[in-house]
């Protein structure tokens, strides 16, 4: 009994020191809020790897608490407010659905800085950031056109938001730059995360005759199916080579770490400003996984395209580009404006699908 009392007292003491300790601490809190679990193998995991990188880089100056599986909506507002109140200096809200919640909390806590991924509403203390995934999609399209024997690729899409439509279009444009007759079939899985359904979608596309597969959903299930059926595929969000060592051509890897380190340093220096940032390959916010399972000339082409995009010589959305119905969209040499891309709700010519409206 005496031991128990001592133990209790000790715990009480640590309890006390916890609260005192938190105030005495000098470390800056940089906080993250996730829509999924940090081990989802896709979107959230990529953000969490970024957080870990940040922690490693600036660990002596900052700590990085996070909240997982926060549903979009009122729960998000509470979670973000909790972070703001718990002493976070900078909060990264890593899902589009957190937008309005972040806007509201940012207005309430003007001294705290916020950054919201993939959104379009900013404020004095609220920046937005996004990654030009479409640059990677363009390279994928080129590789697909070279590697496909049938001239048809399959695209497992999640939901018809601009982000996804943009990716489909970039893929098709890349493919057409190599093979003007290249066709792209699209299946909407209506989910970000359901391995079974993603696998079914992959099988459906393969049965429809595609021999290269790409996905805009989060699990490695389509890669596994592609491996099983002996066709080629691209990974999404993280390097999926483990799921298809002989299948993966490359993958768009979200490497948010570089961005998080850059912005957090700015916060520590006092140079942080609210900006609407849309970084691309050249900034390291996304990287291409090693080009594998392809002949050297295709690899060389992919590397060249990657270099041209990085240097700014090549913009995937450069005219002449026609819309799906054949009407002109961009004149020769004309580049698409970011605003148009961010609200993209039409296909370019060659996509074999009707965009759900």
């Amino acid at each position, binding site marked *: 009994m005496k031991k128990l009392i001592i133990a*209790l007292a000790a*715990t*009480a003491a*640590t*309890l006390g020191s*916890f609260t005192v300790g938190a105030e005495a601490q000098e470390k800056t809190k940089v906080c993250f809020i996730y829509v999924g*679990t940090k081990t989802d193998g896709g979107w959230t995991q990529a953000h969490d790897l970024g957080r870990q990188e940040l922690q490693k880089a600036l660990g002596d100056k900052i700590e990085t*608490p*996070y*909240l*997982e*599986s*926060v*549903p*979009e*909506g*009122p*729960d998000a*507002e*509470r*979670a973000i*407010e*909790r*972070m703001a*109140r*718990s002493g976070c200096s900078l909060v990264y809200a890593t899902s*589009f*659905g957190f937008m*309005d919640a972040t806007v509201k909390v940012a207005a309430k806590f003007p001294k705290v800085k916020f950054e919201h991924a993939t959104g*379009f509403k900013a404020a004095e203390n609220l920046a937005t950031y996004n990654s030009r995934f479409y640059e990677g999609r363009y390279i994928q399209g080129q590789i697909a056109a070279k590697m496909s024997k049938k001239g048809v690729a399959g695209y497992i899409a999640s*939901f*018809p*938001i*601009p982000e996804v*439509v943009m990716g489909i279009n970039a893929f098709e444009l890349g493919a057409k730059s190599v093979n003007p007759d290249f066709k792209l079939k699209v299946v909407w899985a*209506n989910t970000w995360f359901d391995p079974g359904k993603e696998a079914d979608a992959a099988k459906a596309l393969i049965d429809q005759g595609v021999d290269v597969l790409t996905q805009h959903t989060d699990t490695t299930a389509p890669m596994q199916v592609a491996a099983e059926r002996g066709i080629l595929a691209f990974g999404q969000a993280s390097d999926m080579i483990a799921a298809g060592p002989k299948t993966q051509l490359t993958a768009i890897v979200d490497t948010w770490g570089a961005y998080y380190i850059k912005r957090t340093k700015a916060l520590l220096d006092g140079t942080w400003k609210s900006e609407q940032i849309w970084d691309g390959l050249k900034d390291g916010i996304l990287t291409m996984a090693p080009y594998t399972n392809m002949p050297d000339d295709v690899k060389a082409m992919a590397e060249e395209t990657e270099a041209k995009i990085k240097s700014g010589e090549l913009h995937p959305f450069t005219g002449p580009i026609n819309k799906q119905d054949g009407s002109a969209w961009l004149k020769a040499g004309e580049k698409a404006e970011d605003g148009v891309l*961010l*609200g*993209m*709700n039409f296909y370019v010519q060659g996509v074999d699908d009707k965009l*759900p*409206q």
Partner: protein
Amino acid sequence: MRIELERRASASGLFSVVSPLLALVLTLLAGALMFLMLGKDPLYALYSFFIDPLLEVWSLHELAIKAAPLILIAVGLSVCYRSNNWNIGAEGQFTIGAICGSILPVLVPQWHSVLVLPLMLVMGMLGGALYAGIPALLKTRFNTNEILTSLMLVYIAQLFLDWLVRGMWRDPKGFNFPQTISFAPEAVLPELLASGRAHWAIVFALVAALALWFMMRFMLKGFEVTVLGRSERAGRFAGFSARRMVWFSMMLSGALAGLAGISEVSGSIGHLQPSISPGYGFTAIIVAFLGRLNPLGIIASGFVLALTYLGGEAAQLSIGVSDKVTRVFQGLLLFFVLSCDTLILYRVRLVLGTGRNVDVRS
């Protein structure tokens, strides 16, 4: 060794009080053990789970926001379940209520009037009630099992909302993102106090709970619900119609779920989006049972469950346990509450070997 139950002549008053406390103690012990296994300080973990969220005013507001839809839906369901109608599709009625209530602010945003908000609430209730009317119709007309039809209708409602906000109702200026325009100020459920975000939904919830408690306790309708729920035959002798009761209970619970839906969208979210509920309709079923299908009990259980959500979040931040721990914890709590409730209606005996009875609790 086995456990035998013996029905008490009447529900034990003592255990009605002791059982929830016992369940709480068992949950805390199991929780402490779990945290110990995870290598966390159990006392501090339990403190952040259950006490921390109650210490700040803003957090209490959040508790009310979280508890409101749970209580509102669960009290409706309690009447349903008492009358032996098994509506488990409240999530769908919540969704349709939210959609119907949003018709005005989304389609006629230029109409500014004090009438907008009351009309929205009424339309939300109507929508929920009519949607719950589908399983009621199928049950009374075709004898179809309402557990299944109401569950299937959940998925249909969610997909319908998804289609609306990605298509017809999408904000034209919203960069094609899947959400409607933001509601105008007069279409937003006002906040109650200046100190936090809690809005009128919690008032609706408490009023609904009290009204239904009064109905069940003092009104003929409440008696009708109970009698028909115990035995349809007995109800018929008393001149009650089981068929009408199906309609009444389903539509009542649907209306309350619909009200919860539009209150949530109007008060907490401010626009429609593909996901408007983290499973309130299903969690409310658990809340209803935790509150023993008694509207006053449901007020308490609604707050307790809301607290575990908030506590789970606080614990993630303060001690770094994953969100899965929250769900395990909620599951444990439910199991202990459900098993301890046995003590209210039954005596439990532990039988060792054959014949030798050892009275453990009676």
